[in-house]
């Protein structure tokens, strides 16, 4: 009984969140057309001549997410292959907890690290890159480090689940360890690895604190990694802290962006589930 209640409550809360997103969004779309919202290129909800084109926010989210993935996928998969295929059990016992500590660092700490160290010290002082106080590069890089443990840990689980008989079969044909890892274990674990990467993408798209602190606050279309930019989550975090009156169009804007964010992550998850089903191997 209690279990059933717990399950239903979870569903009820999810539905509640969706409804809470949809109702203010409907009010928003009563005033701004969906076309202007989705395809407009100027985001200025608080200006006198307000404009609600969400493209600038999307470009910033795209840049930070892409940079995060470019960082996290090679690092995460590399660590996973190392842990699952190469590491001596003792090394693994040390490495895995360290990796999981990375996942436990509060995102606000990552945000400060991105702003002060990566942006301020590394990119500007050391590398002398032409960049301001903020950049999507710094936010993306640190976000990538943040999701490495997610990608590594889940991929490692998927690779460890590949039966040893396959590794032995490969070794018995004269394959070396790298060939076995890349050509047998990796494809066999592909569905789990894709799931790990998708979870990483979802986290990157939805990550708020790092981008709110380090990516910047001006909503402009981002065309390069060294530019600053405001992501969808960054906008929500900033605007929600402001003094928008309940029911005002600014207030409703938050929910419209939230709904878009929700739809995007839902879509990513949906595609990944299809993909995972398609490639799942039963041993």
């Amino acid at each position, binding site marked *: 009984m209690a279990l059933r209640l717990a399950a239903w409550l979870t569903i009820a809360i999810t539905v509640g969140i969706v409804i809470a997103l949809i109702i203010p969004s409907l009010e928003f779309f009563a005033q701004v057309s969906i076309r202007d919202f989705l395809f407009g290129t100027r985001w200025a909800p608080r200006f006198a001549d307000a404009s609600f084109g969400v493209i600038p926010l999307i470009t910033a989210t795209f840049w930070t997410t892409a940079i995060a993935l470019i960082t996290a996928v090679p690092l995460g998969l590399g660590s996973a292959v190392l842990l699952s295929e190469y590491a001596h059990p003792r090394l693994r016992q040390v490495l895995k907890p360290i990796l999981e500590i990375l996942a436990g660092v509060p995102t606000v700490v990552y945000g400060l690290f991105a702003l002060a160290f990566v942006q301020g010290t590394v990119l500007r002082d050391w590398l002398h890159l032409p960049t301001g106080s903020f950049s999507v590069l710094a936010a993306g890089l640190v976000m990538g480090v943040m999701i490495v443990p997610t990608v590594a840990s889940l991929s490692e689980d998927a690779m460890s689940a590949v039966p040893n008989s396959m590794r032995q*079969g490969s070794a018995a*044909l004269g*394959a070396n360890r790298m060939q076995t890892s890349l*050509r047998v274990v990796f494809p*066999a674990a592909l569905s789990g690895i894709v799931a790990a990467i998708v979870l990483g993408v979802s986290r990157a798209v939805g990550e708020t604190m790092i981008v709110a602190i380090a990516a910047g606050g001006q909503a402009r279309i981002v065309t390069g990694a060294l530019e600053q930019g405001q992501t969808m989550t960054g906008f929500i975090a900033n605007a929600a802290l402001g003094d928008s009156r309940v029911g005002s169009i600014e207030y409703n804007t938050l929910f419209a962006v939230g709904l878009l964010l929700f739809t995007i992550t839902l879509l990513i998850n949906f595609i990944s589930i299809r993909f995972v089903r398609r490639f799942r191997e039963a041993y």
Partner: protein
Amino acid sequence: MSAQPSPEVTTHQEVTPPHEPQEVHFEPAHPTRDDQLPDTPDAVMACKNVDVRYGDFRAVTGVNLIFGYNEITALIGPSGCGKSTLLRSLNRMNDLILGARVTGEVTLHGQDIYARGIDPIEVRRRIGMVFQKPNPFPKSIYDNVAYGPRVIGMKPSNMDDLVEEALTQAALWTEVKDKLKQSAFGLSGGQQQRLCIARTIAVRPEVILMDEPCSALDPIATGRIEDLMEELRQVYAIVIVTHNMQQAARVADRTAFFTALAAEGTGDRTGMLVEYDKTTKIFENPSDKRTEDYISGRFG
């Protein structure tokens, strides 16, 4: 999505020696051939005083064996007698197990495969292995066979021909020629095992080791694999570990009987070779009492 394993795979056909004493009837595999078999094998591989240890545990000790060209050698004996362990030391598969150590000499054409400077990868290429449970890769049938040649950098003039040849030799070609691009997981257990044999043949080894290759197969699939071994013997030396004495009697030219003895002091049991001879001799007129007891089902 891959198919469920067919029921064939799950049929466990391992024949453990019966506890009731009983007469084992068998037909020697090659009654005419037996006379042609030289008294000592023309060695392609040999073990000299081989011990295999896992950490402090001595799994098998003091093995001296010679495996002949174009012969099938069966390793038989009760569970825990070290026959699979010994088999795995013949192509350095034990290297993959932490703490495993082989002492003594295992030679291929007189060359110690454990000598310094010998690449275990090269050893495994020349001495192939077929496992107890069919273990095809999650790839197409074609790619399963082509995998070995690809990873070792063979450059066949025509990979398609090589794949066809290997599948033909493994008596699988006619069954799969129209579905080479389909997943190997769609095959039955017996077909998967023949695919694994084809995969092994494709890299042109000199010796094929088989670790209870039929224990997960039904009698019909087992029969096909045994026929296949008969064919393969024309080209390769085969060493097979089997729990099934009738199988050893049916296919093997020579048979080595192992048993496990409790070591002094500890409760560990260490495997050792009891007797090695022509199969007819082992089954009809063994020299050692323990062999006779095992063969006739009084022990094991």
